[in-house]
């Protein structure tokens, strides 16, 4: 059941100079949330933000009725949300969008770049429950942008690449040594991050002939299928990223490899 509700800010945890986790409490029992779902958050205290902002649901706790979001500051909305104070009301529409599938195969690789890590805590938890084996490959330009590795570890091995080489392997995620060789130890890949990265990951998946799901971003006015602003080209024509995504199997997309 989609809901529009005033959540109460419980607090932020700043992870580095530009990203934080914000935790919010629902006024009533949480609607069930699936890994991959997102929410539309209203920013009501800035003269420069008009529309809601979409964020993946980072974590959901039905016992405490809390949602949390991993947010990277890139503009006014994410900046202002980072300044909300304990007790402030924040209006949220959730849960929105579809969810990652439960793959048939066992060995799953998660590839996350930048703020693309956001959906994968919930995903890791769910896959663990399903008895899957997950490996997280996290990439960033700079080592200081690699955050939350400790939060991922309970759900699988964590591999890292950084372009500055100060943490994990040097280079981009797609250059990580796990991709070397013709065969893949992984039977299913899920990815979220900058579009060029996701395209490259999709290319690898195709080459290695493993199934692959991507979580797309888009410019959204509504988040729930009303505006048709957020389309992506698919083999069946344009689809709404907010209702028919954000998760797409790469076979649905018209991306060239």
């Amino acid at each position, binding site marked *: *059941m*989609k*809901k*529009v509700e005033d959540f109460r800010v419980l607090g932020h945890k700043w992870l580095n100079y530009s990203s934080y986790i914000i935790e919010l409490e629902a006024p009533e029992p949480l609607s069930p949330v699936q890994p991959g779902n997102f929410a539309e958050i*209203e920013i009501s205290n800035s003269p*420069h*933000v*008009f*529309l*809601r902002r979409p964020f993946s649901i980072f974590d959901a706790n039905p016992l405490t009725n809390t949602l949390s979001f991993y947010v990277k500051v890139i503009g006014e909305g994410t900046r202002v949300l980072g300044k909300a104070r304990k007790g402030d009301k924040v209006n949220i*529409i959730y849960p929105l969008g579809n969810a990652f599938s439960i793959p048939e195969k066992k060995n799953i690789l998660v590839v996350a770049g930048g703020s693309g890590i956001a959906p994968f805590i919930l995903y890791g938890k769910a896959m663990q429950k399903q008895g899957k084996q997950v490996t997280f490959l996290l990439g960033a330009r700079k080592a200081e942008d690699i955050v939350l590795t400790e939060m991922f570890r309970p759900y699988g091995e964590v591999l890292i690449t950084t372009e500055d080489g100060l943490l994990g392997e040097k280079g981009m995620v797609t250059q990580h040594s796990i991709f070397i060789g013709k065969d893949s130890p992984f039977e299913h890949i899920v990815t979220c991050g900058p579009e060029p990265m996701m395209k490259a990951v999709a290319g690898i998946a195709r080459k290695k002939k493993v199934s692959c799901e991507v979580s797309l971003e*888009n*410019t*959204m*006015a*509504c*988040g*729930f*299928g*009303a*505006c*048709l*602003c*957020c*389309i*992506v*080209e698919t083999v069946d*024509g*344009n689809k709404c990223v907010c*209702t028919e995504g954000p998760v797409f199997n790469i076979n649905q997309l018209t991306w060239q490899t």
Partner: protein
Amino acid sequence: MADLSVSIHKLQLKNPVTTASGTYGYGEEFVEFMDVNRLAAIFVKGITLEHREGNPYPRMAETASGMLNSVGLQNRGVDYFIQHIYPRVRNFDTHIIPNVNGSTIEDYVTVTRKLNEVKGIEAIELNISCPNVKAGGMAFGINRKSAMEATRAVRDVYDKTLIVKLSPNVTDIADMARAVVDAGADAISLVNTFLGMAINAETRRPILGTITGGLSGPAIKPIALRMVWDVFKAVKVPVIGMGGIMNAADAIEFILAGSTAIQVGTANFIDPAASVKILQGVKEYMARQGVSSVKELIGGMIVK
């Protein structure tokens, strides 16, 4: 209880609050958020003769108190609407009003003919003002002669209430209104979006895939309100006003400026229950001000 009902030519509305084409899907997207049946009407998204994929991505740019869109009439065509969509939504206790589009006058006429046959659909909104399509659309709405031609051609094949939606991208909106009324419009709706543009200074590229798009939201409200007032003074048919209506006070202002009914557009994206909240607020306003019928407010702006 105050009387909220209004009529747009033969179309009877239980209250003045409706939702704007392209901003409210077919109503189905909103059932989880509000009671759709409380609306007087849903202007559903733009319909064309054939299936259209719409414009390339990105289709949206946020602006100060507004947004640009370049959706470009993505829809599955009139036949699909009649066969698959309308049957799903016809049981809502509200009017479903199709928004009719075309690249040529023949297109408009064909779409209208088909809709004229549909039982339950009591009005259409002729969109001669879409800024997001290359052929047709706004091209009809910014030229007096072609606006009249399109209206007249559609009028000839349509028996029920014909609402013509005007483009604000014109020098003289009153003149356009008079023209389409002369050509047979039963009512006027306005405004459609303003042609605008957004650039990303860092990348030096336009933000929209189509470079330009249509501006909506509170940013345009003062201009829209002025145009409603201009049109109200110019024609005798009912006016349906819109443009940046976010709350009940905005709705009342549009009614005072001459709107018989109003459409809630962009507000639906920010608060999916905006339209019913506006309806509630209009009722409260009437109670507070001792207004027994909303009709008393139409064009009721006090000018000295």
